[in-house]
């Protein structure tokens, strides 16, 4: 099981009859592999071979060489206008060049759909799908290509609603948005980007599952862009910072044991760290402002500790914030004397990382 979503390949105990049937299937599979390999070697990259490869890939989508063969077959078929029909159909449709390419691509996308549902984490399927869409950008008129990319966004949302933490889905989403906002697909800089709706999408996904690391991550990638596009001034940036801090605080109070939340919290804390502040969402903060925020965060975490003394993340974040305080002002915060105690708490709560806590203690020079 991977974060609660069962993987397809679970071995079940099999009866003798089932075993014999399986062996037969293995034979058939090996035969098919040989056939495909032979025909590719002989250079016969036909529509029939495409169909054979489909059969093979449905049995074993992880056989990545076959996906590569498929790319070659398709490229051959793209350049032959009569090739989107079986070769015994002598009528030939005589379609426009790009119409038949569009048919080939659409058919392949449809072929992939059930495979993707069955194997949602297979790299090769996602890669091949990306390749198909990039081919559409390359070969089709802009309007046809845009349509395909737009459909992908809908499909991606559907895949994410089935498994909201499939990082393939999120990465793919970023590539779709990037494509739709690219010049090749006719995007004009005066048009509205997709950053706002994407940001709202992350809010929705977080609200339906707090532990969604990918959604928080996507959000963190969008935030700086969002603020830039809104041409946010310092005040607007502060407002956004405050509201994100409030959001994560609320989430942390609800579930302090959730790792994804602490990673996002850490990301927000970088805004006050002089090393990262420049590329954060509020780069114009003065040192005083950063110090002020840091102190407030320490207070807030101490408050959170009350009733959650067994949460190692709080101690970890407190220590990190003390470091940030020192980096900003040159001095430790008033809670300095608590720090050794916190390190010991970490050692108690997370003994497997004892070495790390020893290092941390050294860095804090106690």
């Amino acid at each position, binding site marked *: 099981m*991977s974060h609660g979503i069962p993987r397809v*390949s679970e071995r*079940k105990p099999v009866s003798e009859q089932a075993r014999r049937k399986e062996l037969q299937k293995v034979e058939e599979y090996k035969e098919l592999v040989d056939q495909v390999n032979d025909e590719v070697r002989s250079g016969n990259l036909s529509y029939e071979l495409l169909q054979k490869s489909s059969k093979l890939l449905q049995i074993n989508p*992880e056989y990545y060489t076959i996906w590569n063969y498929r790319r070659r077959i398709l490229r051959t078929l793209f350049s032959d206008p009569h090739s989107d029909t079986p070769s015994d159909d002598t009528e030939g449709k005589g379609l426009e060049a790009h119409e038949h390419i569009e048919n080939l691509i659409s058919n392949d996308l449809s072929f992939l759909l059930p495979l993707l549902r069955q194997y949602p984490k297979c790299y090769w399927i996602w890669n091949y799908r990306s390749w198909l869409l990039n081919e559409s950008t390359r070969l089709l008129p802009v309007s046809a290509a845009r349509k395909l990319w737009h459909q992908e966004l809908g499909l991606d949302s559907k895949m994410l609603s089935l498994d909201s933490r499939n*990082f393939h889905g999120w990465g793919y989403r970023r590539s779709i948005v990037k494509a739709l906002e690219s010049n090749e697909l006719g995007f004009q800089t005066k048009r509205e980007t997709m950053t706002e709706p994407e940001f709202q999408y992350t809010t929705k996904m977080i*609200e*339906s599952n707090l532990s969604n*690391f990918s959604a928080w991550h996507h959000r963190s990638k969008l935030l700086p862009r969002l603020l830039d596009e809104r041409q946010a001034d310092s005040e607007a940036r502060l407002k956004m910072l405050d509201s994100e801090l409030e959001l994560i605080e609320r989430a942390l109070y*609800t579930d302090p044991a959730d790792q994804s939340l602490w990673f996002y919290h850490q990301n927000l804390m970088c805004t006050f760290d002089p090393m990262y502040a420049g590329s954060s969402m509020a780069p114009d903060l003065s040192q005083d402002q950063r110090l002020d925020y840091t102190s407030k965060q320490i207070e807030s975490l101490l408050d959170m500790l009350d*009733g959650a003394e067994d949460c190692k993340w709080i101690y970890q974040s407190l220590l990190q914030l003390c470091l940030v305080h020192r980096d900003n002002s040159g001095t430790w915060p008033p809670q300095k004397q608590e720090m050794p105690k916190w390190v010991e708490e970490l050692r108690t709560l997370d003994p497997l990382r004892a070495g790390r806590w020893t290092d941390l203690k050294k860095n804090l020079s106690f």
Partner: protein
Amino acid sequence: METLGETPWDVVLSGTGLSQSLLALALSRSAKKVLHVDQNEYYGGTEAALSLQEIEAWVEKVNDATRPSPFRNAILQKEEEQNSDPASSLGFSRAYSISLSPQLIYTRSNLLPALVSAKVHAQLEFLAVGSWWIYSKASDSRDLENGPTPDAPAGELRRIPGGREDVFSDKSIDLRSSRSLMKFLKLAADPQNHPAVLEAWGSKAFPEYLLSEFKISKSLQAPLLALTSSPHPAEQTLTSLAIPRIHQHLTSIGLFGPGFGAVLPRWGGLSEIAQVGCRAGAVGGGVYVLNKAIENFELVSKATEQEAPSGSDFPKPPLRLRLNGGEEIEAHLIVGSDEDLPQHEPSPAGPDTVQISQSIAIISSPLSSLFYLAAEGAPPPAATVVVFPTGSLDLDDILPTEKVPPVYLTVHSSDTGECPNGQSIIYGHTSLPQPHASTLLSLATQTLLNSIPPSPDPKPLILWTLLYTRFHHIPTSQNSPHCQSPSASSPSLPASATVSTPNGLPSYTSDSQIINLPPPPPGLAIDDSVLKSVREAWAKINGGDDGTFLLFEERTDLGEGEEADELGKDAAEEGLDPAGSDSQDRDGERE
């Protein structure tokens, strides 16, 4: 009907309520000869879904005190035609399918998997039940802008948090309380914690437990109490009742999909399941007759009076039954509920009888703002629950507020098929007995209508109301059907007694030929005990529980099954790992 009497029946099922119909389903693949009768002219018995005209006939029957029935005191009210707008007036009789027992089915229940393994789930369409709401009184008079009637207030409806994300999204809960709430929800969701809690707190009041162990204040206790759907006022709801029910509620959410934890069969709720059961019984060779009741039964041969059966079920001397059309038939076994078996006096209201007051109101508006899409990708809900906890409704001089039990309203949209488009039905129940229950239920219904957030929908009117009481007799032995001697009127008679009855017939030991199925316990959701009782009855008929209860293959004799079997086998084979390697998993997710 002479053909009914030709050979002795193995089983005569009396009444087509949910329990008997599930039993018919369970017997549908056996070789038993089954006759299934119902005194009504419709299927479903006490779980039936009726048209408006059928309800009128039902009301008359129920109010006839000479007939045994778990229902009493039915009162029907129709609003006068106030306007000619068809959307806000009552439709024709058959446009409605009013459920007498509008119970939800939790996704984590024993009924749903049983319907799947019995291969009948495809005949049912299950609709999602949406978020639950809890009502609280208005904090100030400005909430009265919805224009309530003079004697019903308006207040606030808030969604009840069903898990972590709900708690997170509810900004009205302060940070510390949200953490305490989460701590409790986590504990309740993990059954490993329960034994310790129940030992220490089981017999104490649930609010006391929440305050003491989690510092959960009164205002947040109310939503948690609502999740228990307890019929008792807050202070009388015990932790032993609350914990398992909250566990069922929490672990049901998301089980079959995001955003819902319970389902409702379309086209009439439980009556649909009853109909599916009877249909399966008929396909299996059972004979079905409506408008037929057992008037009387007796032993065929008095000569066997002296023999005590040695413990095997069959062959037993058959019983002779007389049906209400004068037919005489023989049967080895009779199964029914109280009101479906003769020679049974109506249960008097006693200490082990529970009274539930129910209401049904047809509303002229779809009440769409109550049907909230709870999560991304969630199915649109067709029903929603609104809880009026103790203290939220004032009965003024009638009863002190703290003693008023909760009222549970379930709102069904027209998607359920129970009413025409543009209308909705509000079902209500409370454990407050009559005569005050009617007041309380009407108050709750009207208050709900006044408290709904403003929407473009027309102002909701109540077009039609039905009020009635249900008496539920709690079986003496937990969850087991009574094995009743032919004439015992008190179900607390021990099953193993051999007592001579007024008509001189001997009663038997626990292998008795009369099985009295307990009626489904009332409440918001159907109880797991219903299926358990059916299983016990089936085991008695089957000669033991061999594990095949409701475990069927697809029917191949109808020709549809074969394809399904093949597909099933192929799918199972595909599930064997074709990829061949788990090492390819480079999942970058952190756990």
